[in-house]
């Protein structure tokens, strides 16, 4: 816009740079969580996620093969192998810088050195993890010798966290059940208010009756009433009519709380529909019900979609309504947000679990967001800019 008058701005590069920085800042925290959810617990605990793309220096405790593997070479008993081979599976290539045989001095030896462990024998460790353990007498015991190494390991990503959190039926802290519970809450709580609101919005937009202006004002007022006020009175009400805590109560609460925005958005949209179409239909003898079903509803699709996305995001991401109206003491109906808050309390340091669980719950709204962004923006604009 600033080159209108022919003065191409020298600020252009600064604009690009500022936007890159801004976007970077806004993405950085989320990317951190995403990257962390693909790392092992060890990796998360020992290095920042921003180092995940680069080889990491790690302190590892490894073991030589068990004495059962030993062979006799002349007068020597020898065990040979590679430290990084565990149960026959080689780890990704790592390079050892220093190593030791005692936890008190893990950097006692350079690669290629030989450590004398007295009656336990002598061990030589090479850079790639190959070792040779030899002794004058027979090795005894069941387990191998411990070796402490400082090694550079290449970046490594794993899907195991997701496997644990989503598909492990024995994991009581898993997200699978909570995921389906959230879905169960969300779908009816999104669809039902749309229908109820659409009829009301049509009446408020296209029917003439005394008190209409007052009702519209009331809807605008109810838009901002904090739902905190509704918690106790409605919980009492739900208990009195016998539905207590459960899905039905949560669906009803979400419907009630979503209605003002739904009516407001839909009415604003419907008012803007062309008057001719509706009047022509009336002249042709269509009833209000027919006009609504056959003309208004299809034409209002963009507004319906906008509200549906809002309501979906809101119910999916909700914690308070679920805490108060849904989750009873058995915890059978727990939703993902509640599950994550619990994990924050009990597994505060286990970032591999937290990050993965959080991402499971974030993934669906993000998908909806990127696919339906057009409608979301349109709804926001209809709701606040005239």
């Amino acid at each position, binding site marked *: 816009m600033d080159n209108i008058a022919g003065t191409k701005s020298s600020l252009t590069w600064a604009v690009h740079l500022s936007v890159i920085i801004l976007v970077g800042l806004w993405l950085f925290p989320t990317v951190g969580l995403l990257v962390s959810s693909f790392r092992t617990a060890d990796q998360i605990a020992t290095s920042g996620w921003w180092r995940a793309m680069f080889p990491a220096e790690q302190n590892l405790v490894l073991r030589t093969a068990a004495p059962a593997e030993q062979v006799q070479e002349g007068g020597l008993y020898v065990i040979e192998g590679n430290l990084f081979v565990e149960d026959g599976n080689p780890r990704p290539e790592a390079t050892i810088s220093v190593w030791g045989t005692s936890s008190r001095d893990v950097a006692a030896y350079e690669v290629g050195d030989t450590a004398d462990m007295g009656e336990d024998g002598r061990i030589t460790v090479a850079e790639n993890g190959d070792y040779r353990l030899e002794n004058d007498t027979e090795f005894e015991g069941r387990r191998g010798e411990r070796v402490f190494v400082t090694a550079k390991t290449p970046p490594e990503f794993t899907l195991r966290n997701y496997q644990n959190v989503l598909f492990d039926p024995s994991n009581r802290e898993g997200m699978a059940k909570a995921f389906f519970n959230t879905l169960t809450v969300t779908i009816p709580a999104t669809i039902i208010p749309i229908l109820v609101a659409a009829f009301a919005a049509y009446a408020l937009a296209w029917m003439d009756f005394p008190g209409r202006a007052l009702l519209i004002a009331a809807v605008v007022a109810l838009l901002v009433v*904090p739902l905190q006020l509704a918690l106790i009175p409605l919980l009492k009400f739900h208990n009195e009519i016998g539905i207590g805590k459960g899905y039905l109560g949560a669906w009803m609460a979400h419907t009630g709380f979503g209605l003002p925005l739904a009516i407001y958005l839909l009415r604003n949209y419907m008012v803007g529909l062309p008057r001719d179409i509706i009047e022509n239909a009336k002249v042709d003898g269509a009833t209000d019900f027919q006009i609504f079903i056959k003309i208004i509803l299809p034409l209002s699709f963009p507004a319906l979609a906008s509200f549906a996305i809002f309501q979906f995001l809101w119910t999916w991401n909700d914690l308070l309504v679920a805490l108060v109206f849904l989750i009873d003491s058995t915890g059978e109906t727990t939703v993902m947000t509640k599950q994550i808050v619990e994990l924050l309390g009990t597994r505060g340091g286990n970032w591999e679990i937290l990050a993965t669980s959080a991402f499971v719950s*974030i993934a669906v709204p993000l998908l909806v967001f990127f696919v339906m962004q057009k409608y979301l923006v349109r709804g926001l604009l209809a709701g606040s800019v005239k």
Partner: protein
Amino acid sequence: MHPAFQGLLTVVIGVGGCLAYYYFSNAFLDKVLFPPRGKNAGRNINRANMIRPWLFLAPALIALGLYLAYPVVETLRLSLTDRSQGGAFVGLANYSQMASEPKFWEALTNNFLWLLIVPAFSTMFGLLAAQLTDRIGWGAIAKSLIFMPMAISFVGAAVIWKLVYDTRPIDQDQIGVMNAIYLSLGGDEPQQWLTIPFWNSILLMLVLIWIQTGFAMVILSAALRGIPEETIEAAIVDGANPFQVFFKIKIPQIASTIVVVWTTITIVVLKVFDIVFAMTNGQWETQVLANYMYDKLFRANDWGVGSASAMVIMLLVSPILVWNVYNARKEMR
């Protein structure tokens, strides 16, 4: 019955029931009650048309009344009664008890801080992002990425930012970005960020600013694009530099939109609960009203004081409520 199946059934019953209600109530009105036939045909049509709006409105009005209007009155009543005395009227006793609790004043002070800081910074960053992204080719992508936190739940955001604020003992590598930066800038030891009073509240606000900036940006960007080009061209011809164009020409023209954005975010701030609940639960002087209320209602089981604090939130929202209604009525005329 499996809940998912129950949910599906609810959708079918809910949607079917709604449609059936609207269809049959209209049919009843037109065919049975006031048929547009016979000698009273004209009068009947008029009467049917007087009743029909209320048929369309009834379910919504009942739901709105029961789930939003009635609770306001009922909460007011509960705030004036004492549950342990069998619901006896106690006047303002709950309010004075609340006023004697330091935790309440802490929550109120924090809420005011939130009210000052979050809308201001969200609007500012939003305006900045809108102005910058409107001028570049890849602006749409940049916008969509800044807008993205909108879709993330407050709880999800709490986890994301807790990782940023994470603290490890000094002899280990820091895994939280904030401590890593702090140490690399010469800090002497890792800080437990969320336990440092005042600054921890700011850090919690940062989470909400991060979420709300996208909203502000989307609305303000539309408003900026709605500014008539002639006003800007005239200013440039008159020799205004880009900053003068922005602050003296553009800002005044979108002032009303800025107010809308500001008030909308203010309402979000007043209701903020999840972020505090999940990140600190009001410890270390980070309490806010909504979480204080939840504490009173469901942990202390004190409905009187809980309702009283809910009424405080309502009181703080009321000016915006009145302002919105006033504007809506002005527009309709």
